[in-house]
C-alpha cells in the first residue's frame, strides 16, 4: 500500500495536468485563441530591404495595427521626398464621389416591432407580374422601420432575374463632374441579359447561390431613384449607387422586408459602366450573405472584407478589373497621406479602392487566383485571419503572418516585382503601379493598415532615423 500511494499521487498529479491542458484547450476553442488585442508587433527601427529588381530607393512607412479604431498614429518627421505632387487641399477639391456612412440605428422598439411583422405566405413574382410594389430603404430618415414604397414595372424577364424599374422611368441619370444629372436612354434588356449570361453564372460559381426565398428561381433587380426626399435629380453629389438589404431575405433581421431575394439599384450613376459594376457588386452581397450566413451558418464578414470582396465580385462578374479603383490608388490625397484605414471601415470611396487593391494583391499572391476570393468569403473566420490562414498555408507560401501580407502589399505598391511577395506577379493591370505618389506633408497620421510611400534621395534615406513615431508605425528602407 505504501508503495502504491506515491504512484497514485503521481497519477493524480498527471491527471490534473491533463485536465489543465484539456481545459486550456477548451478555453482556446471557446475564445478562439484570440483574447488578445489585434495589435501586431512593433518596431520603430527601420528595416532594410534589398530589392535588386527595383532601380531606385524608397521608404515605406506602415501602420501595422489590424483594426483598432482611434489608432491613427504619427509617422514622426519624414524625410524629404522627391515626388510631392500637390497639397492635400488642392487635390481634396477635386476628389471624386464619396459614399456616406449609413449606420444601423434601429431602436429596440423597432426590433420588437419587426418581430411581429413576419406573417403570411411569401408572395412570389413571376414574368406575368408586369407591375409590383416594393418597400425600399428611406435614406432621408435612415430608419429601417420607415420604408418608402416604390411602384415598379417589369422591364425584363430572364433566366435568372426579373428586372423592375420605377414606373414612369425609362432612363438612367448620369451624373457629370459638376454633379448635374443627365438623362440617358437605356435598354433594360441589355442589363438583364448581361446579368443572366455573365454576372450571375460567374459570381455564383465563386461565392455561392442566392437564397431563393420567394421560390421563383429569380433574383429581383429593382431600379429606382434613391433621391426621394427632395425628388431633385441633382440633389446630391455623393450618393449611394445601390444596396442589398439582408432584411429582404430574412424578415426578422430588418425593419421591413420584401421577402424576396433582390438588389436595389439607383438610376443615378456616374456612367453606365459604374452602374453595371454596382449591380455586380450588390449581387455579390446577396450571394455572399445567402451562402455564408444562411447556408453555412457563419458569422457576417468584417465590413472591410465584405465590401472589398464585393468589389472583387464586380471584377469577376463583368470579367474586367475596376480600373477606376486602381487609378484612385495612384495619387488620391487621402490614400497617399496614409489617412485611409484598411481595416476600420468608414465607407469612403478611397476605402473601396484600398480594399479592392489589397484583394487584388491577395489574388495575385495566391495559387488559387480569383478562387481565393470565394475561399475568403466562405471561410470560418470572418476577419483578417481568413486571409492569413489561407495564404500562409499554401504550399511554398512566402508569408508567415498577416503582417507579412500587409507589408508585402504596401511594398508591392512601390517596387512591384514580377516575382515574390513584393509585387503583383506581373499582373498587367498593375503594369505602371510602382509610382504611387508621396505624401504632401512631412508628418502624417497613419490609419490602421495605411501607409505612405516616399522617395528620398539616397543620402536622405541612408541618414534617416525615425523620431516621434507611434508604436504601431514600422519603417522599411528599400535599397538603402
Amino acid at each position: 500500500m505504501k508503495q502504491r500511494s506515491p504512484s497514485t499521487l503521481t497519477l493524480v498529479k498527471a491527471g490534473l495536468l491533463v485536465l489543465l491542458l484539456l481545459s486550456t484547450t477548451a478555453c482556446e476553442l471557446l475564445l478562439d485563441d484570440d483574447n488578445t488585442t489585434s495589435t501586431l508587433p512593433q518596431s520603430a527601427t527601420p528595416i532594410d530591404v534589398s530589392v535588386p529588381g527595383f532601380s531606385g530607393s524608397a521608404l515605406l512607412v506602415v501602420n501595422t495595427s489590424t483594426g483598432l479604431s482611434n489608432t491613427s498614429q504619427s509617422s514622426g518627421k519624414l524625410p524629404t521626398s522627391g515626388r510631392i505632387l500637390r497639397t492635400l487641399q488642392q487635390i481634396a477639391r477635386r476628389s471624386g464621389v464619396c459614399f456616406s456612412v449609413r449606420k444601423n440605428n434601429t431602436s429596440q422598439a423597432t426590433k420588437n416591432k419587426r418581430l411581429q411583422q413576419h406573417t403570411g405566405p411569401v408572395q412570389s413574382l413571376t414574368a406575368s407580374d408586369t407591375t409590383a410594389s416594393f418597400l425600399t430603404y428611406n435614406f432621408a430618415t435612415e430608419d429601417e422601420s420607415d420604408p418608402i414604397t416604390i411602384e415598379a414595372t417589369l422591364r425584363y424577364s430572364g433566366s435568372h432575374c426579373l428586372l423592375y424599374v420605377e414606373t414612369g422611368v425609362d432612363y438612367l441619370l448620369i451624373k457629370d463632374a459638376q454633379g448635374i444629372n443627365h438623362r440617358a436612354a437605356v435598354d433594360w434588356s441589355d442589363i438583364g441579359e448581361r446579368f443572366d449570361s455573365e454576372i450571375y453564372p460567374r459570381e455564383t460559381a465563386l461565392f455561392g447561390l442566392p437564397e431563393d426565398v420567394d421560390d421563383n428561381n429569380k433574383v429581383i433587380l429593382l431600379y429606382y431613384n434613391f433621391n426621394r426626399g427632395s425628388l431633385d435629380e441633382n440633389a446630391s453629389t455623393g450618393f449611394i449607387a445601390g444596396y442589398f438589404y439582408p432584411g429582404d431575405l430574412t424578415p426578422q433581421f430588418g425593419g421591413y422586408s420584401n421577402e424576396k431575394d433582390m438588389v436595389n439599384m439607383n438610376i443615378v450613376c456616374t456612367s453606365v459602366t459604374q452602374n453595371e459594376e454596382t449591380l455586380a457588386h450588390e449581387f455579390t452581397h446577396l450571394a455572399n450573405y445567402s451562402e455564408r450566413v444562411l447556408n453555412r451558418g457563419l458569422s457576417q464578414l468584417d465590413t472591410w472584407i465584405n465590401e472589398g470582396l464585393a468589389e472583387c465580385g464586380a471584377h469577376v462578374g463583368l470579367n474586367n478589373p475596376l480600373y477606376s479603383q486602381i487609378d484612385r490608388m495612384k495619387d488620391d490625397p487621402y490614400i497617399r497621406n496614409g489617412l485611409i484605414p484598411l481595416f476600420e471601415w468608414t465607407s469612403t470611396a478611397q476605402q473601396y479602392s484600398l480594399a479592392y487593391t489589397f484583394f487584388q494583391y491577395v489574388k495575385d499572391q495566391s495559387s488559387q487566383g480569383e478562387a481565393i476570393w470565394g475561399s475568403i468569403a466562405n471561410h470560418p473566420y470572418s476577419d483578417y485571419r481568413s486571409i492569413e490562414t489561407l495564404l500562409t498555408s499554401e504550399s511554398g507560401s512566402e508569408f508567415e503572418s498577416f503582417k507579412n501580407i500587409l507589408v508585402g502589399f504596401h511594398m508591392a505598391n512601390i517596387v512591384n516585382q514580377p516575382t515574390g511577395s513584393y509585387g503583383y506577379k506581373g499582373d498587367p493591370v498593375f503594369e505602371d503601379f510602382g509610382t504611387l505618389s508621396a505624401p504632401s506633408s512631412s508628418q502624417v497620421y497613419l490609419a490602421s493598415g495605411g501607409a505612405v510611400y516616399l522617395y528620398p534621395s539616397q543620402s536622405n534615406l541612408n541618414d534617416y532615423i525615425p523620431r516621434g513615431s507611434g508604436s504601431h508605425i514600422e519603417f522599411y528602407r528599400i535599397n538603402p
Partner: protein
Amino acid sequence: MKRILSFLVVIGVTVLLLSCKYDQNLVNGQEATVSGRIRKVGNEPFTSLVLSPSSTIDLYLIINDPDDKKEIENKIGTWQTLTGTILVETIETANHKKSFQKYSLFLE
C-alpha cells in the same frame, strides 16, 4: 485506481462540454457579462457592431445612447468586456426553409 481514472475522465468531459457549448449559455432575457472582440460587420449601409467572443458567435450590440455607441465604435478591433441583456431571436428566411439564431446584447 479505476475510480481515479473514471473521476478524471468525468471531470475532463465536463470541462470540455461546458467550454464548447458557449451558445447554450446565452439565455434570452438574461443579464450577462461577455468578453469578445468589437467588430463592424455586414454590408453598407446596413453595418452592425458586434461583440465576438469566438469566431462562431456574434452578439449584435444594441446601443440606444449615441455617446455610448460612439465610444464602442472607437473600440473596434479591441477585446472588450461588456454587460447587458441577452436577446435571442430565431431568424428565418421568408419561405421558412432556413433559419439561424441571432444573439444580441442590449446595452442599457
